[in-house]
């Protein structure tokens, strides 16, 4: 996805808006990859060493950001975008979506892998654990979110970014694909609220 011709930004005369939003130079923001690499190394060390603090830190920070960003995007950014003009919406998406493409899978990995390890250490995986049902509910919530994020949202996100790189992007197609964000925001939001309820219940009982 980085096999993209680097296009120099056209010179814009002072006070004049560009004819149309500039497409992203690369679909994956390459400058973020070292940070992702550092996170992956941190996770490997934490899991290999069964480093409880690091596992807890990663799970809590990753989960909080994942939930917070999902809710913020779904219920704050999404409706604002819906009221923007089409060119403004497209320009915002062209800059916002590549970041999400790198950020969200990193946060999901930061949350899930140490979360499983923590649950094992704390005995939550045992069927005898009194709140085992709550944990299973959290698996189901993650499964629903993964299906929506990976099967519905991410393909649309990528397709929009590639469409924006065309000399003449298809506005009808972009609008159609971006409708998916509107349709799924409610489900994702409900799942994230369920996650908050489950995790705070488990942490306090």
């Amino acid at each position, binding site marked *: *996805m*980085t*096999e993209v011709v680097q296009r120099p930004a056209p010179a814009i005369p002072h006070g004049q808006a560009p004819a149309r939003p500039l497409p992203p130079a690369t679909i*994956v923001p390459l400058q973020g990859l070292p940070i992702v690499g550092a996170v*992956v190394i941190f*996770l*490997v060390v934490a*899991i*290999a060493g*069964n480093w409880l603090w690091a596992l807890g830190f990663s799970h809590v920070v990753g989960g909080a950001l994942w939930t917070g960003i999902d809710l913020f995007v779904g219920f704050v950014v999404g409706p604002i975008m819906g009221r923007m003009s089409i060119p403004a919406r497209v320009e915002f998406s062209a800059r916002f979506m590549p970041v999400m493409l790198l950020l969200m*899978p990193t946060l*999901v*990995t930061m949350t*899930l*892998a140490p979360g*499983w*390890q923590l649950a*094992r250490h704390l005995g939550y*995986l*045992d*069927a005898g654990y009194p709140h*085992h049902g709550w*944990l*299973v509910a959290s*698996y*189901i919530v993650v*499964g629903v979110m*993964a*299906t929506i994020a*990976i*099967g*519905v949202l*991410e*393909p*649309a996100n*990528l*397709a929009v970014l*590639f*469409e924006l790189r065309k000399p003449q992007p*298809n506005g*009808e*197609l972009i609008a*159609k694909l971006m409708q998916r964000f509107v349709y799924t925001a409610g489900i994702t939001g409900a799942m994230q609220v369920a996650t908050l309820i489950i995790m705070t219940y488990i942490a306090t009982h």
Partner: protein
Amino acid sequence: MIRKLPPVAETALASMVLVIVGTIYLAANIANDPSLVVPVALDVVAVLLLLVATVVVSRIDDFAWRIFFVVARWALLGYLVIAGMIEFVFIRDNTPSAQLATLTAGLVVFVLDVTLILAFSVARYQPSDY
């Protein structure tokens, strides 16, 4: 005008859902030496659906294969890292070999499903010479 194509992404998505359901079932019972019949059956159906989707996409005429493989390569790399991390946790936890094999098979199908969904979803809207 948006071109109509066979439901490749939908078929791969159904395969992915089956893998997720099987993995949730196994994860929920992992401490009890669970029966592997349900997750293995779900994995087998998921593999069949993935094969169907792969065959169907390979038979599409005038398709943007170059961009399909560019996206597929990067998606495969990204999701291999994620799946590898999860696999690492299972191995680190000394998950019994039968359960580990089932979970690994599910992860492999999951990664291939995601790769196919992402690559097809991008390439379908691109001109065939792209």
